């Protein structure tokens, strides 16, 4: 692997991860656009509820199904904005034995909580959507923008979210009687539940019990699907792209992500560092010297600007080299700080070009 282009042209799934505020959504969209420019059929899944991406792509509204973005590229470009709730509803409908079971689950309040507010649900549904789009065979490349989180594992754990919930001892206790075994266990569960009800309210416990009971028979389907998804994420059809900015705190976060990915056996295909400041060769010590010398005001003022600029920027490259020493075979792409945010396809194309530009990716 030599450049970001190989990733754009060679992989089937690209997952953009990293903390918030580093340009992750824009990087994901630009990656899909670059693939369309290279003749591929690409879809980007965003989780950013801001209208910015829809505006930049020149489409009225993004929703939970891929919207084709028209443009002069030889390939095909589409975008969708993840709707966690309706994606989860689809998952339930697909896995339920019949309509009755599906409706029972969808109407349950405990389910509604899980499908809207449970932490990790958004990650889970992003992964589900990814798998759904991948399985449809309609796209050469599926690019996913992950929810901003400090916990890289949230996304990697996501496929197992429901499977794990259904593995919960409480679930097993609750479903025991209807399987005709362990009736005694059930009475222990009832005692525990009665105590819980005094604290959280009886209706909460009742809904939870009804939820778990309504899932009976669906566990295996969820588990099998989770395993297939994890396989897809782990092999070389998929590349993880870590998006960061050169600030020391976001690079610390980036390092944390890399460690997590590494310990989960996943490889990072590329590290994209956005918001790079222009590089100056004059050292801060030297410009400080000029600043203190007897020069005309414009010289002194410019020297001060230079000192302040390099004082902030000088550590950036060192920290990035340090970060990259931790990852094997990952491409580094540095994207300069741009004067404004991306507002249209031209702006997005500019980023797409910077991503594919080998000279920007090669680090000396």
């Amino acid at each position, binding site marked *: 692997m030599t450049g970001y282009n190989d990733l754009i042209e060679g992989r089937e799934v690209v997952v953009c991860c990293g*903390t*918030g*505020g580093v340009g992750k959504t824009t990087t994901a969209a630009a990656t899909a656009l670059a693939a369309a420019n290279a003749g591929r059929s690409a879809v980007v899944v965003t989780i950013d509820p*801001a209208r910015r991406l829809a505006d930049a792509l020149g489409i009225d509204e993004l929703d939970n199904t891929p919207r084709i973005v028209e443009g002069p590229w030889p390939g095909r470009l589409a975008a969708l904005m993840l709707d966690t709730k309706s994606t989860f509803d689809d998952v339930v409908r697909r896995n339920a034995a019949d309509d009755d079971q599906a409706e029972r689950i969808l109407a349950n*309040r*405990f389910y509604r*909580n*899980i499908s*809207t*507010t449970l932490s990790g649900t958004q990650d889970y549904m992003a992964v589900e959507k990814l798998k759904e789009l991948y399985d449809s065979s309609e796209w050469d490349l599926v690019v996913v923008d992950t929810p*901003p989180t*400090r916990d890289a594992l949230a996304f990697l754990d996501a496929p197992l979210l429901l499977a794990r*919930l259904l593995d*919960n*001892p*409480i*679930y097993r206790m609750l479903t025991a009687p209807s399987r005709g075994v362990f009736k005694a266990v059930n009475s222990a569960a009832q005692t*525990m539940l009665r*105590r*819980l*009800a*005094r*604290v*959280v*309210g*009886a*209706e*909460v*416990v009742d809904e*939870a019990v009804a939820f778990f009971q309504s899932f009976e028979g669906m566990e295996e389907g969820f588990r099998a699907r989770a395993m297939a998804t994890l396989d897809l994420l782990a092999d070389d059809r998929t590349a993880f792209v870590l998006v960061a900015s050169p*600030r*020391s705190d976001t690079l610390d976060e980036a390092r944390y992500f890399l460690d997590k990915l590494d310990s989960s056996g996943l490889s990072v295909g590329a590290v994209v560092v956005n918001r790079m400041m*222009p590089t*100056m*060769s*004059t050292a801060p010590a030297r*410009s400080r010297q*000029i600043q203190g*010398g007897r*020069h*005309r*005001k*414009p*010289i*002194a*003022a*410019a*020297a*001060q*600007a*230079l000192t*302040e*600029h*390099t*004082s*902030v920027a000088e*550590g950036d490259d060192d920290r990035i080299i340090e970060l990259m020493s931790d990852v094997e075979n990952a491409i580094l792409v540095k994207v300069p700080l741009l*004067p*404004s*945010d991306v507002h249209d396809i031209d702006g997005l194309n500019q980023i797409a070009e910077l991503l594919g530009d080998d000279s920007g990716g090669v680090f000396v």
Partner: protein
Amino acid sequence: MDPGSFFASSRVLIVAGKGGVGKTAAAATIAVAAARTGRSVLLIEVSGRTSAAPMLGAEPQGYEQTDLVGTGAGISCRSLTPDQALVEWLSDHGFKRVAKRMAKSGVLEVVATATPGIKDLLVLGKIKQLETARAADLIVVDAPAAGHALGFLRSPAGVLDTARTGTIHRQAVEAMALLSDPERCRVMLVSIPEETPINELIETSFAVEDEVGISLGPVIVNAILPEIDGLDPEKVRRPHSRSITDSEVRDMCAAAAFRLERSALQKAQLLRLAAQLPLPQIRLPQLFVPHLGPDQIEQLADSMLSGIESLEGDS
């Protein structure tokens, strides 16, 4: 406005903002500025991995409250994570012997799933308990990062919707009372003068006030580039003495032009913010160091205090 009265106007200040805008530095700065007015301050970090204490020259703090020294004199610091708050709360509510076992067996996971927001609510509940017990004159909360801040503040309303009876219901009612009383609690939002962060600041402001019903204090705008007097890349020429090389002149011109461009962009965003959000702004300067330490927080506290002094009296 007198900084003393400013910091006396609410007992809890919740500092919130998206990742990358310097929220934790702002929280540390508020704590130092308030301590300078003679108040005892409790700085609470709820995001799990603590980073405010190191900015004040101390080790990262745990669940126990620790008094800081030096820059942090007058400030005590602690971390408060949702899981710890949940276990502590269960211990206090008749599950003392089984709280740890419940955590292990996965029962807690089910409780937390059944009642979305319960963990955030319990963190707020703990803050309320500390506020009621007057643990300090002022409690400064470094709110959860990224998009979680709104979820955190909405948690009592969410729990009220789910749990209509029981102990947890009462807890939610009490947390709501804390959040909706400006004399007890206000939210200070943090941003930087760039397009997307300013957009998000404006959206969050309206959500916090209208949906959640919490009063907002002034917004903190971080990383303002100070103006450099006489900066003009057009006028930078190589001096006759030849003491400066051509490449140094090129760098100076480039740095000057870049600085002017960034400053102009910042000014435009600050004007837009003022036009779209009727809240006073406290502006903190960009400091030209790779890491913020106690010296920088002291410097930012100076700026914050003068920013507060120039606020109108009624804000």
